[in-house]
């Protein structure tokens, strides 16, 4: 496996404008603090299971910022996995929704207390429901892209998932269906490679030098990037998305990222200091380049920490869904 490249020499000037850098940083902090709060809720018994995206903020936040946000095939679709909180916050979601899902309250906006944390669903922004089975979203994604291609416009479909999951046939399905000569599709196929599937290291399992090479046989434009660098992530995502938007063809993007609190609460959810921390690294860079001071960043973090604590207190006291609601929404007529 190729190792994530280190962030570019800090002497090179940051190629994004200041406002954007600050916005990305803000959302990365917000996401990290949200995830840490979710973990804390779990550890304090205010939820049964945690899974999420700390370590993927540098990639997920730019993704959300670059999405064409709206409902219906004119806008971008997101078929995500369970580490996508950064993208959702970048789309403008309030963090309390995720906290409510953690506490499985009736007020949980994504599943009404039915699904695990990190399992978002947001029809108003074309975020398809996140489901636990690994990789099925890759078989579904070509469908929304077909509608987008037919409708016209520049909406694209984005699908994300982990490295281990690419072993499922669904990943191949996505490559095949997206690259059919009869109907190439506007899909941005993303793999976030953290080099692990739960406890299983990628080393023994991947004959590929890079996962992104699997696109080549299908003549799909493919690239591996450092997903720990928000600047590289933003720039590369922008380029890839523009290609997909304009050419109406697939692009396979592999982003090397970190898994900063292990797989999930099942593996303890403790900070893994051996992993590269994209937020720390970005902050060093921002400080060195004079974009933000340490103090500003600390204040930001403290503010979010307080906000999140307050939101968690609200969520914690809200009622659970009533037992008889299990019968609701089996069919759409029930709406």
């Amino acid at each position, binding site marked *: 496996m190729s190792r994530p490249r280190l962030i570019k020499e800090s002497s090179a000037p940051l190629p994004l404008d200041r406002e954007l850098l600050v916005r990305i940083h803000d959302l990365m902090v917000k996401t990290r603090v949200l995830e840490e709060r979710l973990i804390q809720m779990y550890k304090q018994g205010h939820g049964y299971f945690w899974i999420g995206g700390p370590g993927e903020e540098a990639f997920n936040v730019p993704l959300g910022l670059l999405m064409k946000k709206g409902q219906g095939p004119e806008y971008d679709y997101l078929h995500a996995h369970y580490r996508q909180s950064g993208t959702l916050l970048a789309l403008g979601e309030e963090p309390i929704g995720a906290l409510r899902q953690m506490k499985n309250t009736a007020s949980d906006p994504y599943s009404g207390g039915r699904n695990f944390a990190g399992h978002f669903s947001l029809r108003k922004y074309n975020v398809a429901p996140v*489901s636990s089975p690994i990789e099925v979203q890759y078989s579904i994604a070509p469908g929304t892209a077909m509608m987008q291609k037919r409708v016209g416009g520049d909406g694209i479909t984005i699908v994300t998932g982990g490295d281990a999951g690419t072993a499922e046939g669904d990943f191949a399905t996505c490559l095949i269906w997206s690259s059919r000569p009869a109907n190439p599709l506007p899909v941005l196929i993303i793999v976030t490679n953290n080099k692990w599937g739960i406890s299983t290291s990628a080393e023994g399992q991947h004959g590929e030098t890079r996962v992104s090479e699997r696109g080549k046989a299908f003549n799909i434009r493919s690239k591996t990037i450092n997903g720990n660098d928000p600047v590289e992530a933003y720039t590369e995502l922008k380029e890839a998305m523009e290609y997909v938007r304009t050419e109406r063809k697939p692009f396979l993007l592999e982003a090397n990222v970190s898994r900063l609190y292990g797989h999930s609460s099942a593996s303890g959810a403790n900070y893994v200091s051996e992993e590269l921390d994209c937020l720390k690294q970005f902050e060093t860079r921002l400080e060195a380049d004079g974009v933000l001071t340490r103090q500003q960043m600390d204040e930001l973090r403290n503010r979010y920490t307080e906000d999140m604590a307050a939101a968690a207190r609200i969520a914690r006291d809200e009622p659970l869904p009533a037992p008889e609601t299990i019968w609701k929404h089996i069919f759409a007529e029930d709406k």
Partner: protein
Amino acid sequence: MANMAQAIRMALHYAEENLGVTDIFGEDVGAPLGGVFTCTQGLKTAWNSPLDERGIIGAAMGIALGGGRPVAEIQFCDYVYNTIDLLKLAGNTCWASNGDWNLPMVVRTPVGSGIRGSIYHSHSFDATMTHIPGWKVVMPSTPLDAYGLLISACKEQNPVMFLEPKALLRVKGDERIPGEPDDDRALSKMIDAPLGDRSQWKPQWPAELEAFAIPIGKGKLLREGTQLTVVSYGRTLPLCSRAAQTLADEGISVEVIDLRSLWPYDWEMIKTSVQKTGRVLFVNEDTEVTNFGEHLLRRTVEELFYSLLAPPRLVAGKFIPGIGLADTLEMASVPQQNDITDALRSLAGEQP
């Protein structure tokens, strides 16, 4: 009259013209073949997919999420079994998202025995499918019902599994589909693709087709009777009708219910009938262990125990790993005319 394959084709034509169906697809569904059973010949939104059932179900789900209305085909239900996780996902998407999303999609697939299809072209799918929540499941036994149920399916906001009893696909109906021409040969000339080169062929659709819909969830009381009830669907339904006729000649009065919709199903119709007759036989051809007929029978026992004059019975497929190719094997594996007639006769005669 149209056969069931033609009825399906006409309903799909109507649906792509009038009900917003956007994609009719699957393996060999588009030109030149138009489906291995001809059900999708000449349709304007029909296209050929890769040989990948997971991709087919996945794409249908995606199209539905993306605002389209897909009608996907699995070439034989025997090949649907690597997609059960996706079918379950389609069935739980509305519920899991607490009503945020819903999937208006139809999956069609031929089921059952009757064409000497051997181990992998004879499967039934009703047991497996009725165990998956969140789907509506239908299975017509006549061309008119196929037409009407497919129209309803194409109007649904939820996933619908449309099971086509393959032994009946080429059987002509007794009832006219509203809008079909009087003359069968005229119909065939209009909508059946020619043999040989089809590149220039275009169907000529009957102009008067309409949104004749059969509501999902309603059975059909095919024959009234007083002494016995038989409930079936699909290939075995005509066998039940014939058995009822035979028994009528012997002086035994059998009520015949074509369930048509497997989920939701017409419990009221079954209940009313069993309360009248006190004896009921459930017939289907899926293998008999953990079989949908066992569900119907369980509910009958649960709700109607004290109305029963004899134990309710099930005639179903043998619990063996496949239907063998040889005639002798197929006949011994799934219910045939005699099995049903005999079972009804013995149920009629059963005394505690």
